[in-house]
């Protein structure tokens, strides 16, 4: 990591990073599993994160980093990026596990691993428990099981390749458990195999990683957001917040206004809603900054942030993934365009509100 001196104005601020990933080796995870799953996952015919063979790391010329233990995470994220509170997820790609019972067993193992090896190691670490979308009842039970863990602050849902669109009423049992325990939802999209589950025809026709990577995250979030609103999920669970990770902000204005328009014309197809989609989104939905859009005119990024609202914006690095954002990518815009109070909200206070964090 580069160490130019005098470079971080973040040192003086409280900073929460809502998207920090692990990459847990399957052999290590197996130690948290019972038989027959312990043996099964040691001999996979898929990888934990099926990368579908893409040239994701540009022939090995860009870094493939990982955070193999709590000390490394603290050094790279907390010291290296001036993050005070990383919100850590285990990044399991459970949607790619073909047997539902194995996915459910691995879900529990990932959560136990996260607690034992990371969250218990540093006071500053916070975590999201992961759920398998194959089995919403089991997901609800897992939320119950983890709800007494004080370092667990929310629920990580891989919404690429989820087995039904995530507003489907089958998931209400999961959302009800989350709301009962004040554990808010974070949707995280993904390229590669999960994208291929949702969009198989497009995936088959795409032959550059850039194409799939540009589209995978906003497409998944657009599907999830639309499904939640048409099914009335935020009306059913008015105390539950929904955060969208890994697609930045620029997709949000289109959805705010398109959903409003469609709702006006087709209200009877979303009859649970009591107000405009935009109002639900502004009150209960939050959006993580990474990947920051890079307009040629920086003013345009301010325009986007203003439309989405600084109250709805959370800082995220996505470290250690190859497309992570250094926190200064967002903070330099905040320093340039916004008063200090707004900046402090984006760096920490909004995340405290979105996840009801206890810092």
């Amino acid at each position, binding site marked *: *990591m*580069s*160490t*130019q*001196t*005098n*470079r971080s104005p973040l040192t003086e601020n409280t900073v929460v990073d809502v998207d920090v990933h692990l990459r847990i080796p399957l052999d290590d995870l197996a130690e948290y599993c019972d038989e027959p799953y312990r043996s099964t996952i040691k001999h996979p015919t898929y990888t934990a994160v099926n990368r579908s063979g893409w040239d994701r790391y*540009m*022939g*090995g*010329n*860009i*870094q493939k980093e990982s955070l193999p233990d709590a000390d490394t995470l603290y050094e790279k994220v907390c010291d290296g990026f001036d993050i005070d509170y990383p919100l850590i997820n285990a990044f399991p790609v459970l949607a790619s596990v073909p047997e539902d019972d194995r996915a459910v067993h691995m879900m529990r193992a990932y959560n136990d691993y996260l607690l034992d090896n990371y969250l218990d190691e540093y006071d500053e670490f916070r975590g999201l428990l992961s759920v398998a979308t194959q089995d919403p009842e089991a997901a609800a039970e897992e939320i119950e099981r983890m709800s007494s863990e004080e370092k667990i602050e929310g629920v990580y849902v891989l919404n690429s390749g989820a087995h039904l669109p995530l507003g489907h009423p089958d998931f209400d049992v999961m959302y009800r458990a989350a709301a009962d325990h004040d554990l808010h939802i974070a949707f995280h999209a993904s390229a590669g195999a999960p994208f291929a589950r949702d969009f198989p025809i497009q995936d088959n026709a795409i032959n550059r990683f850039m194409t799939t990577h540009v589209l995978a995250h906003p497409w998944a979030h657009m599907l999830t957001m639309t499904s939640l609103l048409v099914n009335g999920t935020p009306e059913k669970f008015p105390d539950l917040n929904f955060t969208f990770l890994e697609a930045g902000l620029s997709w949000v204005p289109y959805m705010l206004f398109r959903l409003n328009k469609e709702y006006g014309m087709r209200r009877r197809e979303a009859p649970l809603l009591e107000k405009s989609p935009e109002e639900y989104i502004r009150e209960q939905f939050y959006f993580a900054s990474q990947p920051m859009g890079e307009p040629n005119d920086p003013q345009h990024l301010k325009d986007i942030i203003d439309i989405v609202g600084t109250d709805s914006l959370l800082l995220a690095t996505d470290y250690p993934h*190859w*497309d*992570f*954002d*250094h926190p*200064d*990518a967002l903070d330099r815009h905040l320093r340039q365009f916004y008063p200090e109070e707004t900046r402090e909200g984006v760096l920490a206070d909004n995340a405290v509100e979105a996840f009801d964090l206890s810092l």
Partner: protein
Amino acid sequence: MGEHVVAAASELQEGDRLVAELAGREVAVFRFDGELYAYLNWCAHQGGPVCEGALTGTYEATYDREANEVSLSWNREGEVLMCPWHGWEYDLPSGECLSQRSTRLPSYPVEERNGDVVVTL
């Protein structure tokens, strides 16, 4: 500021590079194709350690409208400096960013003098 000896000339052979901290800045010196180049180790994108990245080639393409053909070729092997953080590409001899032509790596005068490699900030 001022002049800084960063290495003996004999320590920086053809194809070599070094990164030195000079007056609080990380500056990299390359000896490439017989010439010396000194750049700030600071990617214009997000401040990554660009000068520690791979020296690689890149794809270039042209479109022949008459023949309706795209020709794709792998060129400039060893001349393209790629930031290890996110893959931003720079032409090593000019410091020009390949995706943002108006962006260049900040450069410094560098020369060989009395057996030393000297960078002037």
